[in-house]
């Protein structure tokens, strides 16, 4: 084999032996998003980039992909200083990016999505047959099975991700940046992705794996770089890393990763669903005869891939979606299709999935959001009409202190707070009402590790106080860490329920995808 052949990837494109970013600085108005960051990737390596939201991971990688331009610092590809002006420029240099939200057009076919933005071999006329042929070749080489003629919307999430990877390879990517690629995948799909990534590395590609999930970083990467507040904390070989060590590097202080759970002290049934059915937004079956019992003092986790009825379930319980059949009972009284206000009155609290839409009014102040349901409560009003803003602010200040919400004042608009702090505010509001039943949907999605730890601890405390908690989450780790029982939803049904005691993850994953 000659020297040059050695340097080529199986796609026929050149390798990137090394890519170095040194002293990278990026300023945004009022923020130093990247502060002299050094980072490098080599051919054949999976380099994990770890950090909280806002630590600078995405900013750094967007500079590598030409979406942002560094204010200071240098990027070298194979030792040659390189300026990357745009994504097209990045692609020409052999850099590909797999975005967290797939950059695919749902109504177009796989081949059309890949042909988009590329020169056609037939001038202005599309050459989809040529593209399809090449896609099939690449599918063979990398074992990425995809039918080029199917429209994207017919593909499962994992398959869509494969299309993204195929497209990057098609365009000659030697270095692949993967932005939180496992966020939307089931455990089986994650396994499949990791096999692909390992093969890509073995074939000489360089990979940057952006994540905030510690165990994944430990499993897949060769080296790991941790960022915090726009600065590089350190780069270490993964073999020398442990979960507590990485978490501490990320957050800047030791973090609790495993919770000490008090033994289950289940009390009476508080929430009961009997054969509850409901329609989805599209008018199809959203919930299909779901039955569920929730006792005081226990957390029941609802696991499942997004869009399998979890949202409908939460809305049916909280009075936000019409129950078409079956019954919902709280503390023995039938509350099927009761209005939300009546449900609040009997002690039902709800942490909604879309906190920015259903949880808060982002143009309102912290204090106003704190009393969204209780603004008419006697303790905050005179004659239930005139609001006593001093009392409201007082109560809000106490909550801010107790829940460690970082906000300049009670009058700050909620939209200027970080995701973690907004979620703490929602949690503070819902728990301030001393609920008997708490529905928590994706309570820590998009929330940093520090706030996640805090929210988890609060949920466990609430459980020990005797509240019945329904935890709906796509994050299996969260479900397993907190739940006493786990129910799996698939296509609007509960397809399995297990006591959370050495649960087999593979088993859960199979249930989540309708297997078994």
């Amino acid at each position, binding site marked *: 084999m000659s020297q040059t052949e050695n340097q080529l990837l199986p796609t026929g494109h050149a390798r990137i032996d090394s890519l170095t970013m040194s002293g990278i600085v990026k300023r945004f108005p009022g923020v130093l998003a990247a502060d002299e960051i050094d980072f490098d990737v080599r051919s054949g390596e999976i380099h994990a980039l770890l950090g909280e939201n806002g630590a600078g991971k995405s900013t750094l990688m967007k500079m590598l992909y030409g*979406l942002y331009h560094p204010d200071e610092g240098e990027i070298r590809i194979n030792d040659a200083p390189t300026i990357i002006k745009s*994504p097209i420029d990045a692609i020409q240099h052999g850099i590909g990016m797999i975005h967290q939200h797939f950059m695919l057009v749902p109504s177009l076919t796989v081949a059309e999505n890949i042909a988009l933005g590329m020169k056609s071999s037939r001038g202005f006329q599309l050459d989809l047959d040529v593209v399809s042929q090449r896609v099939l070749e690449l599918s063979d080489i990398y074992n990425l099975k995809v039918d080029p003629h199917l429209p994207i919307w017919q593909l499962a999430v994992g398959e869509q991700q494969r299309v993204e990877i195929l497209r990057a390879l098609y365009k000659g990517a030697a270095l692949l940046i993967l932005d939180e690629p496992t966020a939307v995948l089931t455990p089986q799909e994650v396994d499949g992705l990791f096999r692909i990534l390992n093969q890509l590395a073995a074939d000489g590609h360089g990979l940057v794996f952006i994540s905030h999930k510690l165990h994944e970083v430990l499993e897949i990467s060769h080296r790991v770089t941790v960022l915090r507040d726009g600065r590089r904390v350190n780069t270490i070989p993964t073999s020398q890393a442990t979960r507590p060590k990485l978490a501490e590097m990320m957050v800047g202080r030791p973090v609790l990763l495993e919770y000490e759970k008090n033994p289950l002290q289940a009390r009476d049934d508080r929430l009961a669903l009997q054969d509850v059915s409901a329609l989805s937004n599209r008018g199809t079956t959203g919930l299909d005869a779901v039955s569920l019992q929730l006792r005081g003092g226990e957390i029941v986790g609802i696991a499942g891939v997004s869009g399998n009825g979890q949202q409908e379930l939460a809305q049916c319980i909280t009075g936000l979606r019409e129950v078409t059949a079956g019954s919902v009972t709280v503390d023995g009284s039938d509350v099927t299709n009761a209005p939300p206000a009546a449900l609040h009155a009997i002690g039902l609290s709800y942490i909604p999935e879309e906190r920015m839409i259903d949880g808060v009014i982002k143009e309102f102040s912290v204090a106003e959001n704190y009393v969204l349901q209780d603004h008419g409560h006697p303790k905050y009003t005179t004659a239930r009409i005139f609001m006593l803003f001093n009392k409201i602010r007082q109560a809000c200040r106490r909550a801010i202190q107790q829940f460690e919400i970082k906000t300049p004042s009670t009058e700050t608009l909620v939209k200027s707070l970080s995701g973690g702090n907004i979620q703490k505010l929602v949690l503070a509001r819902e728990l301030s009402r001393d609920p008997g039943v708490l529905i928590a949907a994706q309570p820590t999605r998009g929330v940093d590790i520090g706030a996640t730890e805090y929210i988890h601890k609060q949920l466990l405390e609430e459980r020990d106080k005797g509240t019945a908690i329904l935890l709906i989450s796509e994050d299996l780790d969260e479900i397993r860490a907190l739940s006493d029982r786990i129910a799996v939803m698939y296509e609007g049904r509960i397809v399995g329920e297990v006591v959370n005691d050495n649960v087999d993850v593979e088993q859960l994953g199979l249930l989540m995808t309708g297997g078994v």
Partner: protein
Amino acid sequence: MGLDDIFTASVFASAIRLATPYIFAALGETFAQRSGVLNLGVDGIMLMGAFGGFYAVHLAQTAGVMAEPLGLLMGVLVALIVGGLMGLAMAFVSVTLKAKQGISGIGVYLFGLGLSELLFQQWVGTPKSVAGFPRISFPILTDIPILGEIFFHHNLLVYVAFALVPLSAFVLNRTTFGLMIRAVGQNPEAADAMGVSVARVRYATTTIGGMLAGLAGASLSIALINLFQQNLTAGQGFIAVALVYFGGWRPLAVAAGAMLFSFVNALQLQIKVIGADIPSEFAVMAPYVITIIALVFATKRQEQPTALTKPYERGE
């Protein structure tokens, strides 16, 4: 009076003629909407195109400086340019300035309505007619009984309009430009990430839409009616926008909708002509009522551009 009196060959022939401006305007609007721009100003652009085309032909014919076909082609050219410029203005407001498309479209409409009237009064004054595009007689074909009258005795612009239908479908579905249009209208982030300039594509489609709307106007003022007057289009541009929804953003279906609408329109004209005992107001309303009913049943379809009316901004 029987059905024979209503469904005559001339009714079919006039349906085809009446469909011409709708086809031009609706095809242009299809391009714009497929890329995510809802241009509600079509009617105003049609008026400007109608006036521009009419005025060019009027000048050429009164001054006698140009041979007849050349003067008419001049008119078409002016209509295309005027329409294109108005489309460009719409693109600037909605793509570069990211204004609300519904509002800016109404602005473009009112601008075209007012300016075409003002210029007409300043430069022309009283309604005058011009010698428009003549009907073409084909050897043999035109003489076929019935079919000859229906299909082979129209002016040039009618044939251009119908030829544009398959051409538009080809451009949208089979070319790289069409792929970019569809991508930009469905998921502009994805198109941007693939190196497609969202702004450039939307500028192009909105300008093409404007040119075709201008041509639609000219097809009225120098081929169908052969005159200009205040508010000549009488809302045909809005019908064209509705036809795009009706046809589900597919050129062939959009043109079919234009045909259906024009056919009902031609029928009501014929009913008036033969003096049927139906209040003529009902007959005039019929095409619009049928369009509204059809729109209600035209539910969300795959081709619906999900980014329609949404200005694109790069994330974060």
